[in-house]
């Protein structure tokens, strides 16, 4: 008779895999992707496919060069590529997008050890990198329906006068994935219902921005909704502040992370020299994540605090 397997318990698994999680998040981004193609035309699709492709190629090549186990198929590089594309203006030259993908995958992620080891969100960091080095191209926003060589127009956060319904449906200027609030909300709620992301970080992030803007504007609901719908808040809150690797592991930690992001976003938007603060706030909180984790460890059931002499 053939030999039986001896393996440690448990002998069954839930069946969720890293790859499935990545694919679900990509699926949740699809409504926003469709909206961006609808508003900005086929070049939006080209940019997204291009970024996904370049990111996956970077991941594959990097693992090859480093002689590490191949991880191109785990979906994380594809997700990073799509998220980065969501953070780019539709007019961005492809070579600049490729530089962003390289920076995200190679510098931010693989150089720190690959999936699970990077301290900062690759897509967010690449966006900030591009924003600082190629500022004029990165801020070359056009209105939906305009020709790609049209003169750059201000985003709603700068102009401050877009109708709320336009912000909700996404018919305003901005990056690919951040304009259509409806699609982002749909995707975010979908991920929460699937149990893929915890509501802790997005809700505390959005809630904090809402409370801060309400207080600052003296109770103006319009101003609050404007702050929530304009800019990259929803994209950041649902898809970047929930990145497992770079955010705290406990729900308590995630709430602190979300509140921190909310406060920083509000401060940068209101008092900073940049009109948008979502990406900076997430990056800054990414850096604080190990400390948040350290102070939000769980309290095990029945744990007894060590005696003083034991601690010494």
């Amino acid at each position: 008779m053939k030999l039986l397997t001896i393996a440690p318990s448990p002998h069954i698994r839930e069946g969720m895999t890293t790859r499935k999680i990545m694919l679900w998040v990509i699926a949740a981004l699809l409504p926003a992707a469709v909206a961006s193609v609808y508003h900005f035309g086929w070049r939006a699709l080209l940019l997204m496919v291009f970024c996904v492709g370049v990111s996956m190629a970077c991941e594959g090549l990097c693992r090859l060069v480093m002689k590490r186990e191949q991880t191109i198929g785990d979906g994380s590089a594809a997700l990073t590529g799509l998220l980065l594309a969501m953070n780019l203006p539709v007019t961005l030259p492809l070579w600049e997008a490729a530089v962003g993908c390289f920076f995200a995958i190679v510098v931010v992620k693989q150089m720190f050890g690959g999936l699970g080891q990077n301290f900062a969100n690759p897509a967010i960091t690449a966006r900030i990198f591009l924003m600082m080095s190629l500022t004029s191209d990165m801020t070359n926003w056009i209105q939906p329906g305009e020709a790609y060589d049209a003169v750059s127009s201000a985003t709603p956060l700068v102009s401050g006068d877009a109708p709320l319904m336009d912000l909700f449906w996404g018919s305003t200027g901005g990056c690919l994935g951040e304009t259509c609030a409806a699609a982002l909300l749909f995707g975010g709620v979908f991920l929460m219902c699937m149990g893929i992301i915890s509501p802790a970080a997005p809700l505390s992030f959005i809630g904090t921005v809402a409370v801060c803007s309400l207080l600052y504007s003296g109770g103006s609901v319009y101003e609050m909704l404007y702050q929530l719908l304009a800019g990259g808040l929803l994209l950041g809150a649902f898809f970047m502040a929930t990145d497992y690797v770079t955010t705290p592991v406990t729900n308590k930690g995630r709430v602190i992370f979300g509140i921190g992001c909310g406060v920083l976003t509000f401060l940068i938007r209101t008092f900073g020299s940049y009109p948008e603060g979502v990406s900076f706030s997430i990056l800054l909180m990414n850096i604080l994540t190990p400390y948040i984790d350290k102070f939000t460890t769980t309290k095990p059931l029945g744990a007894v605090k060590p005696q003083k002499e034991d601690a010494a």
Partner: protein
Amino acid sequence: MRRLHGVSLPHAKQTAGSAFVPLAVPEKVLLPMSLHMGVPCTPTVKLKQEVTVGERIGTCDAPFSADIHASVSGVVTAITDYRPAGGKPCKAVEITSDGKQTPFPDLKVPEYSDRESFLAALRVSGAVGMGGAGLPTHIKLAPKGKIDYLLINAAECEPYITADDRTMKEKPLTILAGIRRIMAILDIPECAIGVEKNKPDAMKILRDAADKDPHITLVPLAPVYPQGAEKVLIYHITGKVVPEGKLPADVGVIVMNVSSIAFLEEYFTTGMPFVNRGITVDGGLVKKPCSVVAPVGTPIRNILEYAECDFEHLGRLISGGPMMGMCLPSPDYPVTKTMNAILALPEAKPRRTTACIRCGRCIGACPMKLMPTELEKAYQRRDAAALDAYKLQLCMLCGCCSYVCPANRPLAESNSLAKAFVRGGGKK
């Protein structure tokens, strides 16, 4: 009071409706001298000696032990060295059956007058906890302090297993009598029976049997794994937390498995020691999932043949449930006192273990609120201080963390190895 975390598992209780069937007396039984937690017994029989059912064949002077009795009548044909699956080597006695199942002539209904004589009677019955680790019952029922609560563990939260469920359905009055016997002798005022809600029939039968006894309550529990873990059960029924390094008795609670209670009561009414075990046989590869009662020491092969197991595709043979059960190396291993189920499973599809993505699912699943990610990292760097700080010792190896991990990391296994590492002195 908040509900502790855990995981929702498929119940797969196909055998809930299958009554216990006594298995045909096997030709031979192999009785290891360690069928309990504690010191192994020494054989008290000689080669070629004739034995009868219920006759003592192994004992031990140490208090932390439980006697072993012949489960078939016949002749001792071998006394061998034996290596249990997951345990220390010990002796084992092989008895070739004469097929008559003649009971030991000197068996008599045990009599007792006080707690001491009650425990002494239990000591020679071979009684052990039948739900898990096999703690000798006379140790469990000898707490130091006052006990306020007797908790009966009838959660049976692992998939497939219905041995406790069947016992409740078939022997409700025995169980109730056993509960009252223990409450009387140990002077315990209250009893609660915790049953998962996926066993409504057993719950109703027990409720009817309890007949509005004001001191015996039935507590329906959410069918979430690991509801039947001792500390989880205590917390969900009484709200009490057993502190690290303490026993349930230290917070005034004794938890007993429902089948153990049924055995105890039968012993005190018939005098027959622990010789038979009720077992669920299931796991996908048996054509006839069933509940059987088999003499302890029966080769598992006999049971699998009875249940029409597909030996061809057998990949994993598990003693116990799929979450905490143990792999057996061969179907020739004998039935033990703690074996509540035998599962015949096909070989699992190999899965790659990938990097931790810090998703926190293991933390959200851990009933003890531990951080399996941190424990794994601490073990990888062999850091005994960190393992202690993250409360490795509170881990009961329920396996929830491994079950949910999307990266397929062997978190529970790591904790198990870490415990061995700490036991060995924690030196790198």
